[in-house]
């Protein structure tokens, strides 16, 4: 296994000019000059949904992200809770008393009160709206109206998709961007939006590692019979002081449910993979319980490898939009998302459903998938196969959180597919459970938890509903593996 690019440069003895000429010639010539097996590997150190930012970078208007060709109204404003929580059965006085409570001295309690009210805004008092979003009206989430997006023409049809990318390719399918592209925590110059920065921070902190391995027999810059592998690694990224991952580190690639091996063609350093029915890769996320297989249907990858060996590109396909809704909502709780990231979760549900454009359900024809693309940046690394099966287990606390998340998702899926209202299982994060502990408006929290940490919640206890779900889906649940983390 030789790395042709590097060993080529070790010809000390060539006069400098000759070597440069030779190097230049190689990068322009379409025909491979050196036919030999080659491998080039990378570790990802930046990853985010590819939302094209249409605002002018220099526009000065303090406080709001400015309007642009993508979102003429600018970034979606902070939610007006009074409007959001108003329902036929909730009087204006009741709304006011919750949104701006008079007598409560503890502001954190106020916050949790708001979270609780947000949680219940369906047509009936007792329904957790985030689990059953179809029971609340569609508030209407403004979508992206711009015509430029990053992504792929997934269906091969230039007439669908409604976007062109910055290279001029038409028919780009990125309906996820259309649906959610004006949301503040995702909108912005690449790799600067809040949730993007947060996820990259966690990835570089060691929450998960994604690796890519390219190989072929002709020439790393031009090879129409290359192979691309992508997958999860249990080995942690080394973060440098300049914020990027250190180069030349070795990583083991795990061939589990987050692994794919696909064919690729490379032309002048640009890698385009085939489009495959299911492209399995690690998931974008900011919490351990979000980890798992992103499962892109009709998935493909494009990667541009620069002369310095650093790579950047796109990963895309159709993803189950219910999965995307769940990732955003149930990782912590719907009300956490609404108060922190300022987008209406019910609106998000309807926007995703409305914009779904792929993965038709074989029985009903309903579109279960939404086109999506992620930007990826990666640094040169060595990706190696592990010697034996890797035993990687989640930490106990992460395991509990992941199981809870996955079961919440199951309940949500069941509800929307059967149009039956699902109850809030015991131990769920929905509905500001911290509020119960603060009923006496005291400063302390029970369970010895400090400062109302929203993420350390007790494990799920039994509940009739959960038992039923467990029984019905026993087989499927046991085969849903927790993310293969360290």
């Amino acid at each position, binding site marked *: 296994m030789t790395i042709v690019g*590097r060993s080529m440069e*070790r010809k000390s003895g060539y006069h400098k000019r000759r070597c440069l000429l030779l190097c230049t010639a190689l990068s322009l010539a379409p025909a491979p000059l050196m036919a030999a097996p080659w491998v080039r590997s990378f570790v990802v150190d930046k990853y985010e949904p590819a939302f094209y930012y249409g605002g002018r970078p220099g526009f000065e208007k303090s406080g709001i992200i400015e309007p642009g060709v993508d979102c003429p109204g600018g970034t979606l404003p902070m939610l007006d809770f009074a409007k959001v929580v108003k329902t036929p059965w909730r009087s204006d006085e009741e709304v006011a008393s919750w949104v701006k409570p008079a007598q409560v001295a503890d502001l954190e309690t106020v916050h949790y009160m708001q979270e609780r009210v947000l949680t219940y805004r369906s047509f009936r008092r007792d329904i957790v709206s985030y689990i059953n979003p179809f029971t609340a009206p569609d508030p209407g989430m403004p979508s992206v109206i711009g015509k430029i997006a990053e992504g792929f023409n997934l269906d091969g049809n230039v007439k669908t998709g409604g976007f062109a990318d910055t290279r001029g390719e038409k028919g780009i399918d990125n309906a996820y961007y259309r649906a959610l592209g004006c949301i503040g925590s995702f909108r912005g110059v690449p790799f600067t939006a809040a949730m993007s920065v947060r996820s990259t921070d966690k990835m570089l902190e060691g929450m998960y590692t994604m690796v890519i391995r390219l190989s072929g027999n002709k020439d790393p810059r031009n090879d129409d019979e290359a192979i691309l592998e992508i997958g999860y690694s249990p080995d942690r990224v080394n973060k440098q002081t300049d914020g990027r991952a250190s180069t030349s580190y070795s990583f083991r690639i795990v061939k589990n449910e987050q692994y794919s091996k696909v064919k690729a063609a490379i032309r002048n350093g640009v890698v385009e993979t085939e489009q495959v029915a299911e492209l399995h890769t690690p998931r974008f996320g900011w919490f351990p319980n979000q980890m798992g297989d992103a499962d892109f249907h009709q998935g493909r990858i494009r990667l541009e490898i620069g002369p310095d060996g650093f790579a950047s590109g796109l990963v895309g396909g159709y993803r189950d939009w219910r999965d995307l809704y769940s990732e955003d909502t149930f990782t912590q709780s719907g009300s956490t998302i609404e108060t922190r990231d300022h987008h209406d979760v019910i609106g998000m549900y309807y926007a995703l459903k409305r914009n779904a454009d792929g993965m038709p359900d074989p029985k009903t024809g309903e579109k279960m998938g939404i086109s999506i693309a992620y930007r990826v940046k990666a640094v040169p690394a*060595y990706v190696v196969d592990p010697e034996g099966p890797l035993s990687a287990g989640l930490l106990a606390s992460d395991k509990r959180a992941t199981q809870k998340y996955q079961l919440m998702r199951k309940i949500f899926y069941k509800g929307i597919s059967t149009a039956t209202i699902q109850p809030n299982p015991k131990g769920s994060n929905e509905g500001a459970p911290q509020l119960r502990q603060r009923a006496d408006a005291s400063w302390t929290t029970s369970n010895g938890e400090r400062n109302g940490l929203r993420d350390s919640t007790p494990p799920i206890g039994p509940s009739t509903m959960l038992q039923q779900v467990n029984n019905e889906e026993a087989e499927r649940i046991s085969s849903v593996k927790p993310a293969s983390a360290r």
Partner: protein
Amino acid sequence: MGLRLLTESEYRNSIRDIFSPDILVQGRFDAGRRVGGLLAASSTVLSVTPASLESFSKMADGIASQVVDQKHREKLVGCAPKDAKAADDACASAFLARYGRLLFRRPLTSDELKSRVKLAADLAKSNQDFYAGLSDSLATLLYSPTFLFRHEIAVPAAGGKTYTLDNYSRAARLSFMLWDTTPDADLLKAAESGRLNTATGVAEQVDRLMSSPRLETGMRAFFADMLQLDTFSNTTKDSIIYPKYNAQIAAAAQEETLRTVMDLSLKSNDDIRNLMTTQKTYISRVLASIYDVPYTFHDEWMPYEFPQSAGRSGIVSQVSTLSMFSHPGRSSPTERGVAIMDIFLCEPTPLPPANVDFSIVNNTNGPLKTVRERLMAHATTPTCASCHTHSDPIGLTLEHFDSTGAHRLYENGQLIDVSGTIQGKTFQGAQGLGRYLHDNPKFPACLARKLYSYGVGANSEDVSPATYKAAYKAFVDGGYRLRTLLKSMVTSPDYFDTVPPSAADTKTAMNIAK
């Protein structure tokens, strides 16, 4: 000779071997000073300042209280008091005599024992706790100068004309040299019985010590000293230019070099000159990122053989040497050359004159693009050339490796020239340098001199090769194997020869060698 302060590793290893590996030694040791290229030699000039005594006494308290605590007392104290709230002279005496002998590396005198048993009893009474008294009296052994200093005692040799080390001093010298620790029970017995005063007795013990895996501990300590691996504690790299470098890489680099040396010299018992040319090493995951090679995750340390194309050669082109002797932001052929001459050829370089203008050398943005060009500007000045013509060519051959030891072909856009001319002969790259050092008789001579100086604690610049002439010949004739050199050296009949103490003291010299 005479009075040698224990080094940090000698101290820690002694505590580990006398008491238990799980006894924590928490404390600050003074940094040593390199004398004749070795920290071991500085122990003959270092003394105990008030600050270091305070440090030693705190460490002693910490160690002693662990030895008698609930967890350890059953195994380590060896007897129980009649009443745990009162004194018990019999138990205290047995305990203090036993550990006193091990710590002082000779039996306590009756006065030394008596004063401590009394202290133990007094403190047991006032604290109403036998173990408190025991712990504090043990602590007085631990910061006594007899423990902290290796006291090499001279006694008249047979024939009365020369002086030699007494039996306990011999035991200590052999043990610290070969195992970097205090004499074990077997060695102390050999000392006590007088076996160590005979050539066969010494040979017996040397064979035992050298055939043990613990020889590696001793030799690691020697090479860590000779190769100046402690330089890493002062090595920093500019995090903008070298964002990859961190403390983990520094630690791994030291271990890599020691493993390479141990593998070649002890395990394979190979010609030690091959340290300059070997392509075999051991790499960990972080080092693999500097060497830019894939790591197999099989064991923490992966055996690796560099291809010829990597341009490396032996330990002078490992990350350790390359990064210790470089600037934070760029490589320094002068520093590398000076270090290699000092470490491997025993040729230290004097400091530059006070009025040197470094501006040309340090200007990386000027017309002189490579460091070679900038150094050459100085080589033309006679006062500079006298030293630089020796050191710089050595370092210039290593210019394919940047300040962290990573490989590079270009500097500031120019292809790097790695030729070096030493005494009229021109070498290319690290491999040329490695060959030059391998074939240079000064290297094995320097190694032998430093090994000898390390063992006896002398300034290598003051040691005459005549003192270990026979051992050196055996080393050369036997294929330059470290084991041969070591064994011949320490079993040579005059190894324990010493000078008498000052005339005034000769009459009162203690003669313990019986």
